[in-house]
């Protein structure tokens, strides 16, 4: 079970992760983009943290939609609409629930991936955040089918996301700013795939009570 508290803690934990990785994400973006991904995410999650108190007593759907709206209206860039849509769609999938079963979490993750694919029109292999999310959602689904506990499922998901993120390194980008570089985008890890991996890893850490 993932409780409303778990969801709130996930958001808060990720805001700290973004702070700690601001420079790292920005540097990844400097190599193949415009050196702002960490800055963008930080600005977004600062706004999220400011708005979170207003919905802390609401249901999970309301909370996640609030996160999405905050990101959409403060981040800009590519990551704004993408992460915004991702959280908005998870919120819509969560509805007025106050806790989530393993199946519910799967629906949220699927909705997230569906949202970013619709918004950004990227497919796997384009060297985007889709490449962290696609194997992650697949891994979670398989684990659920397998009958794995949530804890184990999340561990497998995180590993899959990490692999997906690392897989982007050799690729030539086909979407986003990195695509303008053509061949020169190869041999760099995609920034958005990295922040997506960190988001999934954060869920695993918080929900498996390894950290808060």
């Amino acid at each position: 079970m993932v409780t409303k508290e778990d969801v709130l803690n996930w958001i808060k934990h990720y805001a700290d992760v973004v702070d700690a990785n601001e420079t790292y994400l920005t540097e990844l973006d400097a190599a193949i983009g415009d050196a702002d991904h960490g800055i963008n995410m930080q600005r977004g999650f600062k706004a999220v943290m400011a708005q979170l108190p207003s919905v802390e007593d609401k249901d999970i759907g309301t909370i996640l939609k609030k996160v999405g709206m905050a990101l959409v209206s403060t981040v800009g860039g590519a990551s704004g609409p993408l992460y915004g849509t991702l959280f908005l769609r998870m919120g819509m999938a969560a509805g007025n629930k106050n806790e989530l079963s393993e199946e519910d979490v799967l629906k949220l993750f699927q909705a997230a991936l569906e949202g970013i694919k619709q918004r950004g029109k990227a497919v796997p292999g384009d060297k985007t955040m889709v490449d962290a999310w696609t194997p992650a959602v697949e891994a979670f689904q398989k684990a659920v089918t397998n009958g794995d506990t949530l804890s184990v499922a999340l561990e497998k998901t995180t590993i899959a996301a990490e692999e997906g993120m690392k897989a982007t390194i050799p690729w030539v980008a086909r979407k986003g700013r990195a695509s303008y570089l053509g061949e020169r985008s190869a041999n760099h890890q995609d920034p958005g795939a990295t922040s997506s991996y960190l988001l999934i890893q954060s869920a695993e850490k918080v929900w498996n009570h390894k950290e808060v």
Partner: protein
Amino acid sequence: MKKLINKPEDVVKEELEGIVFAHPDLVRVHFAPNYIVRADAPVKGKVGIVSGGGSGHEPLHGGYVGIGMLHAACPGEVFTSPTPDQIYDATKAVNGGAGVLHIVKNYSGDVMNFEMAAEMAGADGIEVASMVTNDDVAVQDSLYTQGRRGVGVTVFVEKIAGGAAEAGMPLKELTALANRVNENGRSMGMALTSCTVPVAGKPTFELGDDEMEIGIGIHGEPGRERMKIKPVDEVVDMMADAILTDLPFKSGDRIIAMVNGMGGTPLIELYVAYRRLAQICQGKGIKIERNLIGNYITSLEMAGFSITLLRADDEMIKYWDAPVHTPGLRWGM
């Protein structure tokens, strides 16, 4: 980092405050969400034109708001697309009942944020048309990729569509005209130095003391090729060749040419570059009907320049010549 700023995170807000003081006759500025709008918006019965994008490209786009050009501009953070709520509010503010045209540069961020805003405005019953500029020949075009970046031709689209909107052209025709300008325009840029995003605090990329970057974008995105510095004539030759063969431009074509500074290039150098460009065009029988030489679409303090050529028809030249009065471009009034 050496900049004339206070806190890096306040740059855009304080720039907008400067615009409020500087141009009350031309524009109003709305804060949170940020957008710059014509003082007399909405213009009843005429199409409103909204553009926007990351800040740091001044005078694009805010400097082009005024009579005969943009009706509103939405400045994002430096080199970061604006958010949908800015664009949505600006769209509402310029809607004079004849619909609104969104001029969007082809970057994932800009396209997605404008798309969300257009959906929101459409839900309110506002007729929104979008056109995307993608004139940068440095980027390989392909169906499976993001496609080319929108750069210098955006200035041309904003001027020509702005003139046409002022003349009362309806939305459908206006969108077609804007697309025609984009389709007939090609650009390429180069950099001698990097630029520094204020909140990043250090240069976006590093270039050796004897290196230049050909095919650079307007956000300090590294270009397609890094090479040793060459005399400007050779640089212009390379860039003009890439541009001219892409459309391709042909003998007899009439064009509007822009030699644009990236922000840190002295005007004297731009004229030296223009000289070579004019020689090349002359040699190929291509007639430069109009020109712009100066800083029109910049990348903060980057040293470097870009060339944009537009194969212009009579209608384009007519609306190019139409009076314009904005902080960044002014003639005929």
